[in-house]
């Protein structure tokens, strides 16, 4: 067999592959592919983990003071600003959030999300009209957050709010993502 191969090589012709060589080549091909796969996996797992893992993590919500109780008049709705639950050091002004805070009576506050439930645009409060209006597609809400007109599929979400040590506090929350 070897003799025959040598003869073929000397005469300039490629030797015919034997069954053993085919098996060996297959093995080497599979070995190379497996080695490549293992290498890719070693790189892919930490990279995918680095990129994707933070998005499965849930931020622990915190209470943020938005002002003294007496600074809010009964029956009025005002915009309040506060910082996100866990702002990254380089977030700058993007770490800020806002909510619409309505003082219903002496002890009761309601905090509404500023995000329209249609597509998330920031709704504005028209004090004299007692309405929230969305600048994007014209969604309108009544003062209690229920839908008054337009495309919003559901009322304005509410955030937990409490009074502590004379401060009105709002619990931070994710941007409400409508499923409707």
């Amino acid at each position, binding site marked *: 067999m070897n003799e025959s191969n040598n003869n073929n090589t000397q005469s300039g012709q490629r030797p015919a592959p034997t069954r053993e060589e085919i098996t060996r080549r297959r093995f080497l091909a599979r070995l190379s592919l497996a080695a490549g796969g293992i290498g890719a996996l070693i790189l892919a797992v930490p990279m995918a983990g680095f990129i994707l893992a933070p*998005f499965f993590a849930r931020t622990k919500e915190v209470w943020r003071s938005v002002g003294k109780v007496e600074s809010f008049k009964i029956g009025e709705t005002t915009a309040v600003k506060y910082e996100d639950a866990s702002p990254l050091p380089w977030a700058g*002004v993007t770490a800020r959030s806002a909510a619409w805070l309505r003082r219903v009576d002496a002890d009761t506050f309601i905090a509404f999300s500023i995000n329209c439930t249609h*597509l998330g645009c920031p709704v504005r409060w028209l004090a004299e009209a007692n309405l929230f209006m969305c600048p994007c597609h014209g969604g309108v809400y009544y003062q209690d957050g229920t839908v008054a007109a337009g495309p919003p599929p559901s009322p304005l979400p509410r955030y937990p709010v409490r009074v502590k040590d004379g401060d009105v506090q709002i619990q931070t929350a994710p941007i409400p993502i409508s*499923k409707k």
Partner: protein
Amino acid sequence: MINRVRDWVDDRTGLPDAVGRMARHLVPPDAKWWYVFGSATLCAFMIQVISGVALAFSYIPSPSAAYSTLQFISDQAPFGHFLRGLHYYGASAMVLMVGLHMTQVFLFGSYKFPRELNWATGVLLLGFTLVMGFTGQLLRWDQNAVWSVVVGAEQAGRVPIIGTWLAHFTLGGDTVGGATLTRFFVVHVFIMPALIFAFVGLHLWLVLRHGISEPPKPGKPVDPKTYRREYKELIEKTGRPFWPDAAWRDAIFCVGMIIGIAALALIFGAPQLGKPPDPSIIAASPRPDWYLLWYFGVLALLPHGSEKYFMVFGPLLAGILLIALPFISNRGERSPSRRPWAIAAVLMIVLMIVTLWVAGANSPWSPNFNAQPLALSVVGATNGPVFIGAQLFHSKGCLNCHLIGDDGGRRGPDLTDVANRLPRSQMVLRISNGGVNMPAYAANLTPADMDALVAFLQTRKIQRR
């Protein structure tokens, strides 16, 4: 000397020879000005790469610094304003050219056998271009960009099962914040350009493999059994080398396009930056850049309740239909004169996009928050119920959505001559009960307010002969 260097490089790399053979591949002799849009798209992409790399020298993709670096680029850096304009109008040109290229390919039936994958890769490149446009708008990182991210996340949230996760992924967390901008930067600067380079390579390889399609002739349908042989015969008989017989038109058109883009950048400059990217500034009216304004219009004009299905399945269905086109119909007539439905489809799509674009640009569904109280000359009274009614018409938000003459919004019906159309009882009924797009004011107006408001509206008449 130059020849010796060229020969040496050719010998050692083989590239000049390989590139030369590619450049001189034979093309049909009558492939003329209709065929320049593909290379123009590539040319626009190269403008984007070059201007983008230049901008990246000063742009810092940090949520706290991006806005100020853009201010620096726009207001202080030499040629910065021009470069931003170049990047903006280059993006616009790329979207326009990819649209024209696809339209030409569709009308000429060039997507048919054996060029099905040329079309499919082109559709993917269209998708990548739009993603580049959207992410590029977000890198402007002003107030409009921040709210556009939120709108994008809301749309991603409508996807069944994985919607919340997708929205979370889009925002880079629970809210817009420190992780939001960088992900769009990575997509815009690394991932999408890499995909575009790869797919442009594949697209060009397929163009070389199957040849540039010959202009269609009526009565000469594509038959997969004979097409390749016929095309080979045509090319061998009448083909001209792409370089320079056909390439000169591409070069002239690209230079013209570059001059046009540069002129626009010089005359109009870059789009103005909005307010800072502070999500707590509530007075915002987010709008997409012009090439997605039609989609903004779609979302506003869809019947209430159907948005969820459209946002999820609309783009998906459009993408699937576009990619599937050559696999559904890859043979038969190519000439547009024998394919009237192809012309009708293009006209319908163009008409639809233009109509929606105009609607999106005017956005009559958006309340007018800048509406000022009506002038006394318009009100026609300085005291009494009509005057009070006009004040209420402004303060209660009616003017935000209704026109009186040239003042107000266009969300609701024009009330300039409402008294010609509605009696008092109907006015009271409609104001009290509201409607699909109008809030009910019954609990929001005292009887005296209602009387004054209606008294004002009853004066809104146009004398007709």
